């Protein structure tokens, strides 16, 4: 055995270590849904069902992640009951995190234009997806170090688009196309 527990770590720490990414993903998913939902007053009438979908998908995505982490623990499969295995399999049937992402974005779109709010939501969503990825793969946050410049560049572009949207308060297709083109150019121009 070469797990953390066998190297002398306390059992409480050994148990808590895998729970940190799960907790972080839960907090970020909750923040993303709540941020996209508020304020409900003034939102499109279709926002309520979309909010329900987003909440359900966020819950299922977290449950799926928790079940997968529990199952991957050493020896857990030997103790897992048939019902637990079936539940885990049912939870993995659909990509809940992807559905949640679409639902949250749709919820944001059902509110009146608010550029900085939307960009902040994007930051939270991206953080949620990265934490989910780390939790699933069991990797440490250090693996993201090589892509940090890309993340920073992306966030800068998002901020620029928010500024553009705020300046052209009336919105319009030209601003959208300009922002999309800027994103595309930046993606293609960055050294790989």
């Amino acid at each position, binding site marked *: 055995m070469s797990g953390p527990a066998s190297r002398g770590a306390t059992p409480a720490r050994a148990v808590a270590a895998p729970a940190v990414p799960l907790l972080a993903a839960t907090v970020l998913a909750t923040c993303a849904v709540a941020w996209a939902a508020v304020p409900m007053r003034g939102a499109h009438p279709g926002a309520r069902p979309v909010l329900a979908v987003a909440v359900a998908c966020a819950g299922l995505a977290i449950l799926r992640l928790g079940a997968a982490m529990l199952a991957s623990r*050493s*020896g857990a*499969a030997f103790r897992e009951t048939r019902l637990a295995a079936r539940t885990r399999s049912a939870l993995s049937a659909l990509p809940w995190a992807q559905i949640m992402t679409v639902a949250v974005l749709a919820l944001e779109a059902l509110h009146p234009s608010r550029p900085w709010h939307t960009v902040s939501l994007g930051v939270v969503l*991206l953080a949620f997806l990265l934490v989910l990825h780390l939790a699933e793969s069991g990797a440490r946050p250090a693996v993201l170090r090589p892509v940090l410049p890309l993340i920073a560049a992306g966030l800068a572009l998002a901020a620029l688009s928010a500024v553009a949207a705020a300046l052209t308060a009336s919105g319009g297709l030209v601003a*959208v196309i300009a922002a999309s083109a*800027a994103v595309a150019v930046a993606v293609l121009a960055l050294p*790989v």
Partner: protein
Amino acid sequence: MLTADPERTVTVTWRLSGHARRLATLALAALFLALATKRAEFAGLAAPALLLLIPRRSALPPEISVGLAVEADQITEGERVAILAKITGQREATVLVRLRPEAWITAGAAALGADGWYRLPFLAQRWGSRLIGTLEVTLHDRWRLAEGRVTVTLPRIACLPRPARLESLIVLSKLPARLGEHAARAPGEGVEFAGVREFVPGDRQRRINWPATTRRGSLQLNTFAAERAQVTVIVLDVSMDLGPAGFSTADLAGRAAAGVAAGYLAARDRVGLISFGQQLRWLSPATGRRQAERIMAMIALDSPDGEPLGSVTRLPNAALPPGALIIVVSPLLNMRLIEALRELRERGFATIVVDVLSVEPDVGLRGRRNRAMARLARRIWRMEQAAIRFSLRELGIPVVSWDGMSSLDEPLAAYTRRALVNRP
């Protein structure tokens, strides 16, 4: 024992990883909403995800080599063993190995050893010769944007039944004249005290019972019981299987037969086996460790050898030495076997049946309308089963029930306390 297969080269199928799919979803949904709502901030929201999705130069191997080894050729139910897998040729990709088990085994988490071999533990839960499952190898590039999958079919493995516990043995009243460990009724050279008799010239003086001699006034001699070996033949009926996997009648019958064989062979008796399955196969009675291995192999492994069950009218004489104890492990669902048992009893064999039927069959009638009919069908079936057991008891064949959970000593207790009379 470690048995290794030669390494095989398998082609890797690459596709987008879950992480990449989620990022793509975020980017595409944001761009779509930007165009649909004419809001530029959504286009900016797609930027980080798109940047993270830029395909990077990563050496993705088109194929990898997989070496496999199994810790043991044969395992026993409830035993934990491991499949060993070595993956080579993955270049920079990280490897995740997982065992996708068949329903009869439970797989544990894989662990990478210092020697570069992945150890995939599993627990066998049902005896028989079965496939283990498949080995699923997942490869990820450095950025975890691409995911490669490889599936390798794992070999078949023989799992022996976990023998039921049997400590008290049924011993016949009349044992064949063969040296063994059971105290017979006849006097002999054993160690179990049988009684005292008058000394006759030629008797060994060291066996004189001096206290009895003093009391009676004439020389008295201790006598001892002879020690004989018993011949036991196990009839294993797996021709019909009923019940949930792991606790079906065939599962229970195999465990009971293995327990009986192990118990009698440990007492240095001669044990034979008649397997009443898809084919009729048998092993003549013998003793020793090799016989134990042969019996376990016959219970666990399917073999095309043997006599088709349809042509069997009686159990083979070669497998039934005179004076043998016949222990039948069966759910008593096969009428051909029941006829064979009646015929055995007529031939004077001492026979006892361990009944492993603990479930009722599905009568196949569903719905509220058929509920009464289903209840009636089950009742008729129960009455038929009771009648079969009653008819066997009337013939002098005891039938005891075993649930598969307890020790075999419990149902057989009534017959292990005293010698079973083997006369018709």
